[in-house]
């Protein structure tokens, strides 16, 4: 008789009608019963493929086995041996292109819901006050500086602490987290959870100094007088604009600006909090990555009546997680694929009132490997909007690299590193989006881990 593999246990979620009126988490998390039901779907392969799909190589079968045994806190600790931020990864990792893609079940059935299980045990451990701080080795007398308190920096700090170093993270903003706090909205990653994860790292011994813009208040050379090494993971914090006519009209925001107002500064609670966003009725979001989905879904929750996503390629090329595209569509966001704006039209008071667009078709692949969009002549049309959120990517913010000219960067300003994350400046390492360009939280975390290993290796070899 053939083995019957059940489908993934469904994730309970807020309904679209309810959730567009609040900023609460959309996926509600598995109950214990659901987690058990899902965990036993894992067939415990002799040669598990899932582990190699994980950028930080979590021992997935081991943590799933502990769930089956009802040892949820131990399961969380198992994950934390390689991934210090499981409550975050379980929520934002694109498992469908990583561990779950490699899961042997995914060939004919649905893969094991590895991400949902990771989230379940991380939340269980936290909610039941079972978080234990592992034994930290005695301080070896060396201090390492980390620039940026995003996922890369937080991970590096945690790993260095477990190796006996004291890590100090310098953060430019007034709260730690990087994209985790300013970019990813509350309804995908509650900030209370971020605070708990950051708190865990602080208990491991990582020090976080906020309101510290390295490159302004201190140079890297000044830092190196007090710290034996520096890991730069400042992210891809440079907004990219279309560069078309009318872009400085009121009501046109970079996604960074919009999301920072909404997420970090809590503009959705304006009145209680002081940072506003402008009133919005008809919003166009340019782009189709996770940032575009986040911006679109935030604007709905801020009262927009209509949100249109405008992307120059087709659905197939859209970089966002399928899950987030799905959530956006459920919430009523309309997608205009194969469309690109050519200019913005503003009213007399300088506020945007419309966007002229062109239809596109797809030609041969370009340097990114994706099919190139080609404008269709004569297909211009006007889209009336009062708000535009430009979410077409983020570049390398040059603030630190311009202040440190002996760190080699490429033409676009990304830091150049060797295979072990060393930059051209001795004792300075780099990772995350400032090296690779916009990528994922988990990839930044992976580079944080590798940087910690290289720093340790280099310090031990002198």
């Amino acid at each position, binding site marked *: 008789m053939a083995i019957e593999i059940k489908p993934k246990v469904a994730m309970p979620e807020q309904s679209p009608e309810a959730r567009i009126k609040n900023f609460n988490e959309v996926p509600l998390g598995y109950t214990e019963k659901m987690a058990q039901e899902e965990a036993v779907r894992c067939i415990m392969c002799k040669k598990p493929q899932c582990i190699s799909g994980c950028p930080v190589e979590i021992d997935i079968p081991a943590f799933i086995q502990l769930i089956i045994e009802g040892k949820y806190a131990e399961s969380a600790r198992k994950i934390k041996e390689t991934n210090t931020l499981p409550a975050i990864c379980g929520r934002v990792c694109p498992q469908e292109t990583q561990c779950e893609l490699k899961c042997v079940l995914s060939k004919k059935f649905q893969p094991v819901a590895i991400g949902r299980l990771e989230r379940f045990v991380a939340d269980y451990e936290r909610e039941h006050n079972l978080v234990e701080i592992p034994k930290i080795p005695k301080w070896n007398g060396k201090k390492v500086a980390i620039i940026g308190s995003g996922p890369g920096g937080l991970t590096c700090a945690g790993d260095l602490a477990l190796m006996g170093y004291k890590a100090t993270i310098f953060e*430019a*903003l*007034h709260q730690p987290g990087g994209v985790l706090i300013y970019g990813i909205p509350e309804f995908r990653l509650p900030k209370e959870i971020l605070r708990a994860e950051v708190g865990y790292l602080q208990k491991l011994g990582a020090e976080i100094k*906020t*309101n*510290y*813009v390295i490159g*302004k*208040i*201190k140079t890297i050379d000044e830092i190196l007088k007090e710290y034996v090494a520096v890991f730069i993971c400042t992210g891809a*914090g*440079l*907004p990219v*604009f279309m*560069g078309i006519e009318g*872009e*400085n009209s*009121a*009501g046109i*925001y*970079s996604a*960074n*600006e919009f999301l*920072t*107002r909404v997420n970090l*500064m*809590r503009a959705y609670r*304006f*009145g*209680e*909090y*002081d*940072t*506003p966003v*402008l*009133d919005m009725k008809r919003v166009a979001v340019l782009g189709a990555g996770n940032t575009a989905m986040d911006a679109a879904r935030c604007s709905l929750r801020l009262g927009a009546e209509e949100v249109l996503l405008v992307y120059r390629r087709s659905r197939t090329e859209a970089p966002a997680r399928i899950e987030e595209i799905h959530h956006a569509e459920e919430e009523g966001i309309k997608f205009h694929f194969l469309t690109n704006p050519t200019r913005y039209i503003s009213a007399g*008071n*300088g*506020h945007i009132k419309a966007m002229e667009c062109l239809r596109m078709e797809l030609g041969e692949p370009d340097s990114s490997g994706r099919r190139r969009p080609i404008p269709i002549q004569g297909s211009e049309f006007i889209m009336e909007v009062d708000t535009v959120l430009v979410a077409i990517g983020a570049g390398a*913010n*040059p*603030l630190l690299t311009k202040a440190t000219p002996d760190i080699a960067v490429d033409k676009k300003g990304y830091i150049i590193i060797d295979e072990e994350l060393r930059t051209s400046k001795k004792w300075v390492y780099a990772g995350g989006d400032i090296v690779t360009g916009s990528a994922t939280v988990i990839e930044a975390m992976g580079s944080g881990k590798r940087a910690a290993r290289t720093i340790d290796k280099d310090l031990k070899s002198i």
Partner: protein
Amino acid sequence: MYKIIRKKKLAPLVCLFDILAPDIAKKHKAGQFVIIIVNEKGERIPLTIADANPIEGWITIVCQAVGKSTYTLNDMKASDELFSVVGPLGQPTHIEKYGTCVCVGGGVGIAPVYPIAEAMKNCGNKIISILGARTKDLLIMEDYMRKVSDEIIITTDDGSYGKKGLVTDALQELINRGDKIDLVLAIGPVIMMKYVSLLTKKYNIKTMVSLNPIMVDGTGMCGVCRVTLGEERKFACVDGPEFDGHLVNYDELMMRMSMYKNKEKIALENYLKQRNQKCL
């Protein structure tokens, strides 16, 4: 953190604060600014560093109450703490021995003019200062400016102090006088900087202005402070705040600075209502 160690009222609605921030005090240069959050729910606002004492570890900011955040700040007292102060941000002023620098400060713009005038003076420039205010009561930091100026001209709109007229009138007189002017620095309301620049452009006098558009992060990450300089887009927080006054699109800047006026009005009304209720 970020304790206010001294507060001084300079004019109705204008206060000076000395804030304990040793690392910023040590590192800052003339022309740079900080971004402040007054309390936990506040917004991020830029304010120029008007002065500093690196030995005692404090910086000076001057704040004019216009909206909720600045009213809240001006209601704070010495020994209160600010929630967040980050800096020094922005490009420092390029200080050079130009020869004769005319420093024009309008209203609360005199506060950011002061540290630059001081640095230019220390570098060997002759400093002629033109300070303008609507009326005598609103003129600030005259004593500070006198210390760093070789010559000082004061104008008030209503003639209650100094000459009656605008700073541009005084500047035109100075130009007519025939002295060689190597640089004009102008900081104040955008309309003032616009008209100073239009005037100096006629005579081809190098002019620097300092812009204060709306800012959020202050490190070049969000783009809200974008200004048009000639044909280029620049961010005031990382490329500025100082720019060539002849290249700035002032009309666009004024439009962008008024984008939130509806929200600002509501927030201020609510704040004043609440503040008045507390006093009853």
